[in-house]
């Protein structure tokens, strides 16, 4: 069964950002430059946090604006990036309504969640989880 990353309850988020660091570790390095998930406060930590991550759209806007077909549809929603086709035009970044496409400045390419679920194990408060995607919904 195909899965996607989903936000269970944003009110559980304490803003520790361990998910951001986890995402970057996929590449075997620390830091956040290539993280595809981002946590920020609503406007002061006292008001809570926002989890920004790709929500695996069935009909992704980013895919429609890509001029080189570097983005292809992912089974279960969202997109898969073909780095070698990408020309770094940033149209996908601009098209995403929830700002869930990030930018890796070192290679001038987008960073998009691949719904691998690596971050889930590093969220101590159950804010995010992997959810099975029902096909033909």
């Amino acid at each position, binding site marked *: 069964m195909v899965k996607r990353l989903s936000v269970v309850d944003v009110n559980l988020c*304490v*803003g*520790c*950002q*361990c998910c951001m*660091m986890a995402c*970057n*570790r996929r*590449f*075997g*390095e*620390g*830091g*956040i*430059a*290539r993280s595809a998930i*981002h*946590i*920020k*406060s609503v*406007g*002061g*930590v*006292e*008001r*809570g946090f926002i989890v920004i991550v790709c929500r695996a759209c069935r009909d992704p806007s980013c895919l429609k604006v890509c001029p080189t077909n570097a983005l292809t549809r992912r089974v279960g929603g969202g997109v898969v990036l073909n780095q070698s086709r990408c020309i770094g035009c940033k149209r996908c970044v601009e098209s995403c309504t929830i700002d869930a496409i990030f930018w890796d*400045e*070192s290679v001038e390419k987008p960073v998009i969640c691949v719904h691998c679920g690596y971050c889930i194990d*590093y969220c*101590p*408060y159950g804010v995010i989880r992997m959810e099975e995607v029902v096909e033909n919904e």
Partner: protein
Amino acid sequence: MNDGLANVLHIDLSRKRFWVEERSELFDEMIGGSGAAIRLLEEECPKGADPLGPENPIVLAVGPFTGLYPIASKTVAMFKSPLTGNLGESHCGGRSPIAIRFAGYGAIVIKGSSETPIYLAIHGGKVLFRDASVIWHMANSATVGRILREKEPGSGVRSIMRIGRAGENLVSYASVVTETYRHFGRLGLGAVFGSKRLKAIVISGRRSIPVSDMKGYRETYREIFELLASAEMRKYHELGTSMNVNPLNELGALPTRNLQTSRFEHAEALSGENFARKYLGRRVACAHCPVACIHLAALREPYESEPYFYKTEMISYDYEPIYALGSMLGISTPEALLRLMDKVEVLGLDVISTGVALSWATEAQQKGIVSTKETNGLKLNWNDEEQYSKAIEYIAAQVNDFFKALGKGVAYASSVYGGEEFALSFGGNEMPGYHTGPAAHIGFLIGSRHSHLDGAGYSIDQKAVANKIILTPREIVDRIVEEEAWRQVLSSLVICFFGRGVFKPALILLAFKAIGREVSEERLKRTGENILKKKYEFKRREGFSIDSLEIPERILQTETPLGYLSRETIREGLTTAELRLNSIMTRNIPS
């Protein structure tokens, strides 16, 4: 390999210039954090510097684990303290360490002074000197945060450090507030900011940090992360540090009404349990720390002027503020206590020094040492929230000679007005909330920061109570100094002291190995001693001597869980400490 840690960013506020210096040897030898900071302070701070002069540097430092491992989440600030006139060191969490590291620096040194109010915007390699005229004199430090949040980029990956009015007015124990609820609280960094007309620092960054052993790094990370989920750590998340109110009160170790007693009849109302039940509104974390120990109370209050008009303030609480503004001032209700905490936060004061200053002032007024003439009309009495609220404003605003003196700390105020015997000052710093026994007080006196966190004497006392043993002054000093030396390693790695039970030497070696550095346990311990040595060298250079430390009479008059303390015991502890420190100072510690 310079992963950015070795980069020291120098900023000259007088000439509005900045440059980066690569200091690999500094971080190799001194680790980072406290170790790197004391070396930079020694290099940058001239002997006899005026703490409020342009020559006093502000050093901020993070460590090799920052951004790589969880809970390496503190920034160490070093400076010459306007409160003690000696070594100033304060640690702060929030997002500050992550922001500094991901901006590409291991340390920042700020010198000089601006003619006009400014704030610094540091975004990665960019350093901008921005005008702060509009936000200078702003009444609320939280408003300053809100404005800069809108004005500057980097949401989620930045820290906003700012001072309040207390810092602008050079109150000796003014704090620097970050992310609204975390602080460089102790020893007056806020006044040093103020003296430089530096209102705030916004810093952000998004970089990655390469490691040599990718697989080993991921595995070690996982191990540390799992250890941090243990029961030992969960207590900080559950009730938080305020869990200590009830046990310390039951023990008879909770300083109350300027330590006239060590039990408080309203302790239960101010306890962590009661706060959690009735006021806890949200728990939040410092960046890259899964523990989330920051407890915010929601205080819903009506506006008097209009029916059905409410505001809900979120106010951070912890054990120390509950002690300093609660039991020390005899405050009996959580609501009154929260309002006082909020006031201290808004004005940017160190909460411990403020509470101790006000409790001293209350007793001084009750004893007739000062009158309403000095207090600007205030009649300070235990549990009188309104008078205390005004007094806090008067300290921050420095309204008259008395509040100017009070703003220099209780050691100074009592030297002018009298009442030294009940001025709870240790090496010039106000007392933390532990009247547990001799180890706590010897620790406050000899500790390099005069803080309970230096050698954790309060913990030695509590163990002695639990095991029904009496330690000799020599045993106490040995334990305090050993603990303080080891804590230099932790604060150089900038590991939060709450994680000290997890980050044991073996785990630290493993964590180093995974990022490509071979370190031995012996070398780590030597480095800890060396850092401690450097700190006392600085302290002695600036006039510190154990001989001239004053023991406040009051601590001998109020019973501790280990009985009444005698001057002789404390003195013997100090004499032993002097010898112990001499041996560290004269030892040639190879690095």
